């Protein structure tokens, strides 16, 4: 199959997957409680409730209810968030920036560290560095984020007092304007180095916590695919050509080893997303994850549905992009069934 065809095919399937996912989400919304519960707020009058019942066809068959619900989603009506005491659609964008800032910084750190360390370990197979990398990778996969975060807090916040929790110092927050919602960028835009340092300082622990496991996953993949590439005959052929070992590693093995690692980077994005829920709870980070955690505890189904729908669509798109990149880069890959 041609690469283009493959991507087109994936693009054609994407809406189907989104629809199917939305059906699951819809099913979740009907799994407990009243069918229109997600739209109700405490301050609604009887009349308004009846109006909503009408609009979302509570009395009609489930298929119709789904269509009404999906129509509402497309119009931007995601229901009423009991946790945030406002419509879900209003609270999401603000919270999103906070989560994305966390996730993006973690992703960058994890990819950079993972690839670096993975290359280092893979090139020194069965040496000490490699064994350490293996232990690191396995610990990373076994480490409960919530516990790791708490340990870091006990050490760096409670005992050493180097950092503080939350997203920023309230004073500094008030000092600058927030056009993007990314505090690091906002502070740079405002030309306030103090605010920038503050933003970075607040980011440090959550980012390290979140990136740790992902780094381990990427490291492991990078290492094993590098080992695999190094055993390929073209590497031997490159040596036979008289290339310097560094060049063999850099130009031949690492470049090809990165290709399968890319898929793992896509998958670990999901890992990062789910990690934000825990990390934001521990560090009192005012993002989507914490909203979700609150919603879960309070049974705020509107928020839960919106969050699940949002993350899965994002995850789907990221993976599509990653797969496309993979298909483009790997000229050996045979696409299709």
């Amino acid at each position, binding site marked *: 199959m041609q690469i283009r065809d493959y991507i087109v095919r994936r693009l054609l399937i994407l809406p189907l997957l989104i629809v199917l996912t939305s059906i699951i989400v819809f099913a979740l919304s009907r799994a407990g409680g009243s069918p229109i519960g997600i739209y109700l707020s405490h301050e609604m009058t009887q009349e308004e409730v009846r109006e909503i019942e009408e609009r979302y066809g509570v009395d009609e068959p489930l298929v119709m209810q789904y269509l009404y619900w999906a129509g509402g989603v497309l119009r931007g009506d995601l229901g009423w968030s009991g946790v945030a005491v406002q419509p879900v659609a209003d609270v999401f964008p603000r919270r999103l920036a906070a989560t994305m800032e966390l996730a993006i910084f973690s992703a960058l750190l994890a990819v950079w560290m993972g690839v670096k360390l993975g290359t280092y370990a893979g090139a020194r197979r069965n040496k000490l560095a490699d064994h350490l990398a293996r232990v690191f990778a396995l610990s990373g996969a076994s480490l409960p984020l919530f*516990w790791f975060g708490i340990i870091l807090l006990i050490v760096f916040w409670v005992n050493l007092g180097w950092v503080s929790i939350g997203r920023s110092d309230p004073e500094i927050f008030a000092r600058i304007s927030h056009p993007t919602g990314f505090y690091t960028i906002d502070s740079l835009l405002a030309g306030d180095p103090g605010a920038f340092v503050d933003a970075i300082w607040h980011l440090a622990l959550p980012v390290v916590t979140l990136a740790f496991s992902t780094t381990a996953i990427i490291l492991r993949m990078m290492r094993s695919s590098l080992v695999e590439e190094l055993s390929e005959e073209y590497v031997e052929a490159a040596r036979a050509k008289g290339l310097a070992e560094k060049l063999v590693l850099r130009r031949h093995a690492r470049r090809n080893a990165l290709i399968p690692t890319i898929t793992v980077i896509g998958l670990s994005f999901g890992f990062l997303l789910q990690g934000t829920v825990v990390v934001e709870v521990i560090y009192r980070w005012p993002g989507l994850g914490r909203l979700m955690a609150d919603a879960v505890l309070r049974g705020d189904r509107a928020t839960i549905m919106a969050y699940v729908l949002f993350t899965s669509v994002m995850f789907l798109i990221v993976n599509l992009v990653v797969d496309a990149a993979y298909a483009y880069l790997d000229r050996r890959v045979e696409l299709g069934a």
Partner: protein
Amino acid sequence: MIEATHPPSRLEVAWQAFRVRARRVGGVVAEALKSPTALIGLVMIVAFILLSLFAPLLVEPNSPDAYQMPRDWGALNEPPGTPGHVLGTTQEGGDVLYGIVWGSRTSLRLSLIVVSVTVTIGVIVGSVAGFIGGRLDEILMRVVDVFLSIPELIFALAIAAVLGPSFRNIILALAAVFWVKYARIIRGQVIHVKQNEYVDAARVTGDSQLNIFVKDVLPNSITPVMVQATLDMGNVVLIGATLSFIGLAESGLAEWGVLVSSGQAGISAGRWWASTFPGLMVFLWALAFNLFGDGLRDVLDPRTSRR
């Protein structure tokens, strides 16, 4: 060579075949344990299983429900080393040691139930899709794709939240999420194994499709599932504890995530123990199965492992 002249009995045949097979399985385990990390993993696993089996002997069970933490209202927030509370107490007066010991039982129960159920479902769905193929495969794989399109913790979180906070619902939620991986693994394996010439050779002997599946395809497809299942014995507890930490289990349950959560509030006041010890247990539990599973993968699935 002098051989027995009489035809060997059925029993002898079976015994001989069993010995060879047993040696093979033994060989795999021995091979896996050559790696020191895998050996450490296995030792830890055995220790955890012993801990959970002998929990009633180590710490007197709470009555009526041993999985509920006993509360000692007279000893709130005691630090480790307090007589009677070796590892300290929580802010509700729960004994941390009790939680750790009985928490291992909770974890073992959780992981055994979830892994056995999900492996069964996953293997059935995956092999049907892979072996029969065609339209059915297409449909099943779309379902799998959908399940995979939601990050597993978030999916489990949503399901457990909708079902209502309780440990039983955490088990249900994890089971609903984890089977997908197995279905996908086994399907890929089956499709791959199906192309081997020994499957063609079996068809040439005229054996039935069911027999071919059971004798040729499944045994050669199952090892990655076994590796994954070993790893998931750890992962299930990891995610289960995360869900309880967020607050989806009954409070007061002897479960590690619940304990970490109840200890979290006290850390700013310097009460580090109530979170640290149970969390460490989750880490060690997951690490044990990861170490052992990794060693197993090296032997069973050399393609994806370090060489």
